[in-house]
């Protein structure tokens, strides 16, 4: 599709209306994302795939695209840069929200809770305070 077919060339499946939309496939995105470490075990390479490469690609589009391209790309560039920025902030743990609680021990009662001495290694989070 998408090759400039004339209206008469569009085929309609018998028994279906031309406006009928095929139901979306039911894919578990979270489970799919969990496969990324299988494909890319190195956390620094995962950071490239998830953050650095998309950012570079978008910057390239802005600087190479020229005025005409920019007119159409602008909203999507802004959205993508914003979402990549949000992802970057999350990966670096510098989002304005509270610290991640994934590794924190669950207190049995409020009075016996003690802070962990050291957080376990967290993927994609560089050492801070440097």
């Amino acid at each position: 599709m998408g090759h400039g077919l004339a209206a008469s060339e569009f085929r309609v499946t018998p028994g279906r209306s031309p406006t009928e939309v095929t139901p979306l496939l039911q894919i578990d995105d979270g489970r799919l994302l969990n496969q990324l470490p299988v494909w890319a075990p190195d956390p620094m390479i995962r950071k490239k795939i998830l953050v650095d490469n998309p950012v570079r690609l978008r910057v390239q589009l802005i600087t190479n695209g020229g005025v005409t391209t920019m007119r159409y790309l602008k909203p999507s560039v802004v959205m993508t840069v914003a979402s990549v920025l949000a992802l970057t902030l999350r990966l670096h743990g510098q989002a304005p929200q509270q610290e991640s609680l994934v590794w924190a021990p669950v207190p049995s009662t409020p009075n016996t809770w003690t802070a962990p001495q050291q957080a376990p290694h967290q993927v994609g989070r560089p050492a801070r305070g440097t």
Partner: protein
Amino acid sequence: MVAGASVPIVFDHFGGAQAQLGVEQPGFADLIELVRSGRAYVKISGAYRSSTSAPDFADVVAARTALIAANPDRIVWGTDWPHPNSA
């Protein structure tokens, strides 16, 4: 055509490679070379379009690791949400 393009080229869905045909399938070596030389990006998205082994798609591992190993600076992630069905 791809090599001479003045804008970045991104192959969606893994370049359309089919997992069951393996890394020897026609065109895959060219895709690897474009990625290795930095002239094209590949989006590792829509695993279910290249694989029949949902939900973990174990059969795509070989080709994906080959692409990533070729040049990790030219791979981008995507899920292909909301997974339109063109069948």
